[in-house]
């Protein structure tokens, strides 16, 4: 089925992202050190970026693992179930948490405001998708009980 192929591609993308996150966890301090030197910015701003990143990293990891579980279920044909709606809401909450962390960070390093805006918008978008899924799940259940 077409949706299954698409879900498998998404599954691999999520796995790639998880790998990238793991790599960043190791190399982030060196990356920031280079960036501070390159931009000649105050050390405190570099620390703000590092702290924000390491606070956001577990949240992002949770979101990616939840997306992985959701996609596995979709590949298995379990699409419109209440637990999937719950998983999508978890992803939305993770986006909200990252928005909050970046909001605090942008007090020290202003460009983080772009992260705030992007993640805030993503949070809203995912919440809308969760509402649509919830309605679709109710309709499917009603349809299943229509003889």
């Amino acid at each position, binding site marked *: 089925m077409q949706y299954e192929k698409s879900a498998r591609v998404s599954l691999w993308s999520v796995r790639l992202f998880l790998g990238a996150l793991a790599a960043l966890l190791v190399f982030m301090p060196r990356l920031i050190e280079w960036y501070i030197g390159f931009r000649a910015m105050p050390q405190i701003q570099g620390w703000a970026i590092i702290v924000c990143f390491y606070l956001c990293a577990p949240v992002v990891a949770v979101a990616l693992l939840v997306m992985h579980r959701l996609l596995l279920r979709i590949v298995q044909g379990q699409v419109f179930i209440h637990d999937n709606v719950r998983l999508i809401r978890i992803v939305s909450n993770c986006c909200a948490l990252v928005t909050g962390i970046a909001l605090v960070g942008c007090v020290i390093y202003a460009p983080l405001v772009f992260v705030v805006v992007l993640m805030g918008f993503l949070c809203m978008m995912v919440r809308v998708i969760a509402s649509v899924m919830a309605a679709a799940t109710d309709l499917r259940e*009603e349809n299943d*009980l*229509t*003889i």
Partner: protein
Amino acid sequence: MPIIVNLDVMLAKRKMSSGELAEKVGITQANLSILKTGKAKAVRFSTLAAICKALNCQPGDLLEWREDEEDEHERGTVS
């Protein structure tokens, strides 16, 4: 659900099993069970027509409206 489906009564009158009826109507036994146990949310007219044809009866013989306790409380008929 205030609509009761009296399939068991008609099946007994016609001396037919659930499996036979399910086969004649073209639905699964699981779906017929959902109908019998009152868990169904809706019935298609095509399904109802097929059941009436198989059991040689009228829709009124199968479907009964019974006021449920919530409605009775609202009307104040039950204390």
